[in-house]
């Protein structure tokens, strides 16, 4: 490897030996592409003319305080995921791969991968926990409409972490022809670095837009954290600035119990899915089952750079319960006419708390996705 792949003590490349050459090939392709103006031109062209970048920065008119929403919900595909699947898709082309595999929880990353598979002409296989397949039939059909094959994963708890395990197993046998399009800024090196770089555009745009609209930097930038890709994308360009960075983890049914996915708040150091990071686990290292109303945040590990930002003190991490997220989801719909994803509602919920305490602070919120996928669940939960 050319880079260390470490963020402080976190990160690394904990995979079976057989996968190391594939990750080395990916790192080389990524670093070469970063130096290649033709790659940047093609990616930026797709981001602008296909995906709809730049996304707007919207100042909330009716919610209290000064809340600015970075509108990744308006990106093609309905979430920030599209940014990085386009980047990885072009890299896969560059490496001469013919097939993409991906994991998905609720289906958003699977849909994003199916989009890039259709656009760039890959055979696409998406691993999805059998529980999630049953709960997210519409997203399964979306993927199939775009030509992807969805494989239900029956092992383990039959959710996102099991889908990642299965994708890694597939990749161990298929890496010569196949790119594993990991969906977040977690996993083994070079994924956390690469995904951050492909998502950096979120914070880069937001920084320029808020300076333009407000004449200064925001006081706070807030994003939800599952694996952590939208948060690291929002934070990356603000790290050198005097801006508070706050990641919001899913506190589920409450942090005092076990039904949450608050890895940085309640987890301990461990090694899962290729990286040393914080992990929700028992005292012997067996991975815990997690819970969040939002499937996109329901993951027992977290991107290793967030673990480092927490330990170094550069970013703060807080929790937001299912109930708080639902209330924020409803408030945004009623006050601003925006249906956001349950994931994004976690970030907004914390922004609303902060706006009450500090009405003059300029608060930037990463609105990572739109809420269409959650409308059905909201109808049941808010009834």
């Amino acid at each position: 490897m050319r880079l260390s792949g470490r963020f402080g003590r976190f990160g690394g490349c904990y995979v079976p030996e057989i996968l190391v050459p594939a990750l080395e090939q990916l790192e080389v392709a990524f670093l070469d592409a970063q130096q290649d103006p033709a790659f940047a031109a093609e990616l930026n062209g797709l981001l602008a003319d296909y995906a709809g970048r730049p996304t707007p920065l919207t100042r909330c008119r009716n919610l209290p305080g000064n809340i600015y929403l970075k509108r990744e919900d308006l990106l093609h595909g309905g979430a920030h995921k599209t940014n990085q699947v386009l980047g990885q898709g072009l890299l896969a082309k560059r490496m001469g791969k013919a097939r993409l595999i991906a994991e998905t929880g609720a289906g958003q990353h699977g849909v994003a991968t199916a989009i890039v598979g259709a656009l760039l002409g890959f055979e696409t296989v998406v691993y999805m926990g059998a529980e999630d397949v049953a709960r997210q039939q519409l997203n399964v059909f979306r993927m199939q409409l775009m030509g992807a094959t969805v494989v239900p994963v029956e092992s383990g708890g039959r959710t996102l972490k099991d889908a990642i395990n299965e994708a890694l197993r597939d990749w161990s046998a298929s890496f010569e022809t196949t790119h594993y399009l990991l969906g977040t800024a977690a996993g083994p090196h070079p994924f956390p670095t690469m995904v951050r770089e492909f998502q950096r555009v979120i914070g880069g745009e937001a920084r320029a837009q808020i300076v333009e609209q407000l004449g200064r930097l925001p006081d706070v930038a807030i994003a939800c954290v599952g694996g952590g890709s939208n948060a690291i994308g929002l934070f990356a360009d603000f790290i050198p600035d005097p801006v508070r960075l706050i990641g919001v983890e899913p506190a589920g049914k409450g942090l005092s119990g076990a039904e949450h996915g608050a890895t940085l708040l309640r987890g301990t150091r461990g090694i899962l899915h290729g990286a040393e990071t914080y992990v929700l686990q028992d005292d012997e290292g067996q991975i815990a089952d997690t819970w969040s109303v939002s499937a996109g945040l329901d993951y027992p590990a977290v991107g290793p750079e967030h673990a480092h930002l927490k330990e170094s003190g550069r970013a703060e991490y807080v929790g937001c319960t299912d109930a708080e997220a639902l209330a924020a989801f409803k408030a945004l719909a009623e006050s601003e006419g925006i249906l956001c994803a349950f994931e994004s509602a976690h970030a907004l919920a914390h922004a609303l708390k902060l706006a009450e305490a500090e009405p003059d602070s300029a608060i930037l919120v990463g609105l990572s996705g739109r809420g269409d996928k959650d409308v059905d669940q909201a109808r049941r939960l808010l009834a």
Partner: protein
Amino acid sequence: MSRYFTMFDRLDGAAAFGAFLMLGDPDLKTSARLLDSLVEGGADMIEVGIPFSDPVADGPVIQAAAQRALAAGVRVGDCFDLIAAFRGRHPDVPVGILTYANIVVARTGFMRDAAEAGADSLLIADVPALEADPFVRDMEQAGIEPVLIAAANTPEPTLRHIATLSKAYTYCVSRAGITGTHAGGQFDAALVERLRAADAPPPVFGFGISAPEHVRAALSAGARGVICGSAIVDLAQRGGDVARFVRSLKAATGNESAPQ
């Protein structure tokens, strides 16, 4: 003198037959009995898994075995107890542990406890040579012999690194994939040759051994041993005669049953 060294010395150039079981599958008592069946069948070395909830290097058979053990409430300490009791019954049979990094880092003194139980080696499936140095230092300090995986696609510099880190044997993976993958009787003689050139510990093939012809194919590729895992675990789970199955594979190595 290491038990592996003594074993290879005793075999005098003949191949070693290694047999794998998941500790605690399906429960502690049955697991202890199954370990004895491996020796009864003539296994020269025993490999044991310590179950992990998320075993990414394992195929469905060994995943299911780990799930059964965890569902039975088996803890890491129970696994060390099983090894210690086995060691009491079989003082000379080399025992290697196969597990995952998170199990090792979660337990302070994992290597020391493994050594005290009487284990001889440790292979951590998701620790490649790139990340192995600190783990290997801990193993050596505790008197556990490191085993690393070498694959057909492992580049030369990594292979040399593996050769310097590994002690007991080199775990060779011929074809891409996970445990339980059928190698189709194809074992990579070039890998064996490259390991020999790098002066690595004896090459032992680990994936895709489920029938006597696989054993013979691996040996004709130059292996000093083979390990059979998924096929034994699967048979045990179905209540088959494990000792008899081990005997049939062991016979294909051409080495006579050693006095145990």
